[in-house]
């Protein structure tokens, strides 16, 4: 009897399992997820780019993978997931999703529908980038997410955002985790990177299939434009291709999009909130002889001092940077230690102006703390209930914020003196 039990038990154990077993080819891996407003009020439109298997070659000849797009709509995100599953025989999984794009309209309406789904999702990695589409739908961004060099749309987008933040300071690497953190936190507002579609004329090719520069066409199909253009003759107008740019930031008030900032405003934002790494600024003044001087900013340090006096707060922001001038010799700018002092002051005042401007914009147009000053403010409270009872939003709106920017060094990017021409 015991022997029978000892044989049956392991056998039952071995053959009874495997509820979670799925072969790799049973899965369809979602690469990018896009969320827009649905056709019906309150509904969501879910678009996903799915990695098409069998299209990656490791034997030398580079085969570009395909990323077909699937779309569904549902009353909730889970409803949309379910309806999407009905479109394919494979099991869709979001465990390798790298980017979530949210359409501008949905962002303006509010992201309440996403919070709970994202928080509870075991598949979605909370380190994946969340971004807002600027002026277009997320679906259009997905269709245009093709890099000229990088064949993987998700990698292209995530690297684009990361690089734009790291090298230009014009974006911000925000992920689901930071989204949820800001959503839950007291006195903190959500900030997400902005993705914009820029149109560029594509150079015609003999095949007429509309490529970008370089000739490596991504296999994925965009909206009808490319196909339509491809069917045309070389004498017709060159097909227009759109590519994605990470150009700025979307500032939220609560869960609704309040303000979009781009370019220098985005860089100023990063300078204020402490997420700046490198960036560029162009100054023009008496110190530059009336010419534009471009500087690369780096070695960023920030110091925040926050003082609270009852319901009001005072913030002192000190920023230190180093600059590296580009094209100084061509511009004839004096970057010797004696001459660079004026440049430093010029740069410092410009940055101060930019940062003060973005702070004012946040106080007036957003009305909430997008800079995470609340992290410094909560240290002035003794207990948590006191902190929770404090109206931080109002205090931020009425806060007196002083900015001091000091450029500690300007390095010449090129020689400070032009070479004398020959005899």
């Amino acid at each position, binding site marked *: 009897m015991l022997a029978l039990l000892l044989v049956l038990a392991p056998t039952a154990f*071995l053959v009874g399992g495997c509820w979670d077993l799925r072969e790799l080819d049973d899965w369809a*891996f979602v690469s990018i997820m896009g969320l827009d407003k649905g056709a019906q009020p309150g509904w969501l439109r879910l678009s996903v780019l799915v990695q098409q298997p069998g299209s990656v070659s490791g034997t030398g000849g580079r085969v570009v993978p395909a990323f077909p797009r699937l779309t569904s709509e549902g009353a909730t995100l889970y409803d949309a997931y379910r309806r999407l599953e009905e479109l394919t025989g494979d099991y869709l*999984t979001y465990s390798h999703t790298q980017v979530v794009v949210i359409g501008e309209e949905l962002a303006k309406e509010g992201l309440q529908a996403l919070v709970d789904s994202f928080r509870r999702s075991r598949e979605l990695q909370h380190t994946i980038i969340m971004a807002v589409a600027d002026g277009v739908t997320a679906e259009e961004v997905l269709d245009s997410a093709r890099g000229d060099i990088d064949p993987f749309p998700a990698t292209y987008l995530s690297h684009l955002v990361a690089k734009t933040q790291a090298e230009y300071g014009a974006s911000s690497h925000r992920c689901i985790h930071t989204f949820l953190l800001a959503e839950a936190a007291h006195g903190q507002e959500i900030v997400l990177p902005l993705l914009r579609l820029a149109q560029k004329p594509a150079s015609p090719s003999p095949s007429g299939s509309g490529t970008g520069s370089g000739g490596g066409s991504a296999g994925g199909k965009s909206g009808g434009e490319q196909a339509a253009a491809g069917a045309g003759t070389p004498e017709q107008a060159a097909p227009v291709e759109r590519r994605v740019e990470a150009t700025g930031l979307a500032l939220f008030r609560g869960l609704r999009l309040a303000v979009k900032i781009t370019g220098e405003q985005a860089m100023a934002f990063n300078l204020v909130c402490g997420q700046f790494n490198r960036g560029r600024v162009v100054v023009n003044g008496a110190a530059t002889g009336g010419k534009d001087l471009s500087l690369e900013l780096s070695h960023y340090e920030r110091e925040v001092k926050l003082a609270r006096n009852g319901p009001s707060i005072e913030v002192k922001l000190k920023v230190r940077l180093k600059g590296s001038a580009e094209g100084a010799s061509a511009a004839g700018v004096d970057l010797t230690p004696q001459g660079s002092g004026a440049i430093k002051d010029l740069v410092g005042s410009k940055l101060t102006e930019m940062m003060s401007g973005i702070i004012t914009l946040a106080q007036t147009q957003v009305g909430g703390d997008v800079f995470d000053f609340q992290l410094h403010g909560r240290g002035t409270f003794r207990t948590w209930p006191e902190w929770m009872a404090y109206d931080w939003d109002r205090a931020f709106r009425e806060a007196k914020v002083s900015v001091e920017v000091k450029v500690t060094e300007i390095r010449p990017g090129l020689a400070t003196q032009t070479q004398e021409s020959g005899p």
Partner: protein
Amino acid sequence: MTSLWKRLRSIFTHPKRDLEAVQFSLGDRDPRQTSAAPPELRKPPDPDGADKGEPIPEDLDKAVERLAAILHYPLSQDLVFREITLPTRPTARARVIYYEGLAESRRVEREIIEPLMRFPLTNKTPKDRLPDVFLESILPSGSSRRAQSMEQLVTGITLGEAAILIETGVACLADVKEPPSRAPEPPITERTTRGPQMAFVESHRTNSAMIRRFVHDPDLVLEGYEVGRRQKTPVALLYISDIANPKLVAEVRQRVRSLDVDGITAIGILEQLIEDHPVSLIPTMLNTERPDRAALHLLQGSVVLLSDGTPRCLIAPVTFSTFLHSTEDVYQRYPYANFLRVVRLLASFVALLAPAIYIATLNYHSEMLPHLLLLTLESARQTIALPLVVSVVIMEVAFELVREAGVRVPAAIAPTIGIVGALLIGDMAVRANFVSPATIIVVAATGLANFAVPDQAASFAIRIGRFIFIALAGVLGFLGIALGFYVLATHLAGLRSFGVPFLAPIGPWRPGSADVILRDPYWRQELRPSFLRPLDLFRLTRRSRAWDPGLESAPSRPESGGQEKTAGDEQERGE
């Protein structure tokens, strides 16, 4: 209810199943207690009714007749009964009995028959002095001795000695054995780049001589026993008497001599008969073919067992780290040795868990893979018809087939088997869409890692365990692997090797010189493994590099050389 309780009790507390009913432990008493005198030999019953102490008949013919009956002469045609007439006055007859092939015929002629034929004896020699006269003056063989009983005669003859019977009631045995043997050759399975290139041979005397070549210590004791009623296989127990714990020696001795079997043809049988956990996959004795390794373990306080007829020896006790060590570790400088040990440790994990982790990751937890790797693996698996678990099992079985065939294949076509194996496993399987290239890589890496495990028994355990983990991974993914590993670790924690916990010195923690996974430089390894409870805990002093003024001068061993207690002695002990 009472009967249920009794039934449960009987299931879970049977002495054989009670894992905590330790039969033997080295204990926590002072290990320096001296051992008592060895107990009396326990002679196994004599075959064919030759009782212990059956006297040898004084009548030559009766003695010869009795021997012929016991040894089945003339049925056994390799038995030689050589009749000689001694040049005595009056003449006396003698018989020389030996097995042709076991005893060297030339030595029999030169050392026994010729001296007997030429040496004159008179009847004035007292009869009771005759054996002594023969042994002292006639037989030049160094190991000649007097036979006291029929049993001794029979045993000696079967071991290759020559029996000499003279009609005056003299019975002697002369050691002229020259069994089929070979010269020591380089090791086959435990090769090293540095160190001696000698392995054991079938003769246990030669083997013990090889060990003595490394350990020139007069305290190296070799106790000899004969195991088996029929075979009477000589078994030698070696230990260094002022290092090895007497309780350990006594326990090994007792186990060997309590065996009641027909005989042991190889030392592997002896291992199965005396090891603590014969059913476990995990070996608890080390089986090695290297005499230098045996010598190293003797110097640590272990005991070594040799068996005639097997070119290997057994070493006990051992712990888990022993199976990750190679003799090479001692001969290499310690950074290289540690590097190799880390490689071996990784190899052990890879060999045991790589296919299981591969299956669990791809089938259950694909989110753990990096994105690009996932894309590549997914693409490769699109055209594979078989489920991943089946693919892996097929390839593992194929690998085992090739490995097993390789053991028996004639040397002339061994390269062919290698090519066939490579083709079979690799290229054809991929082309036929049985498996993906990634599976081939995993299986091949697993196989290579298995070969990196220094001990063959441990390697076997890993091979079998691998299939268990594949099954667990196929059913429960990572949870199955983790729980399986936990069960394995629990099992290891419950094992003992001659009283020493298998996970010592980590679990339980025992102080000592670092030599578990990584080792200290040799000149810093002052202590012998304290879990062996050696009589002398120190093997060198801190001044072992006395010429080097950079090392601290205060010795940890007292100058008197007495056996002082170490800090470890004050710790809790008892396992």
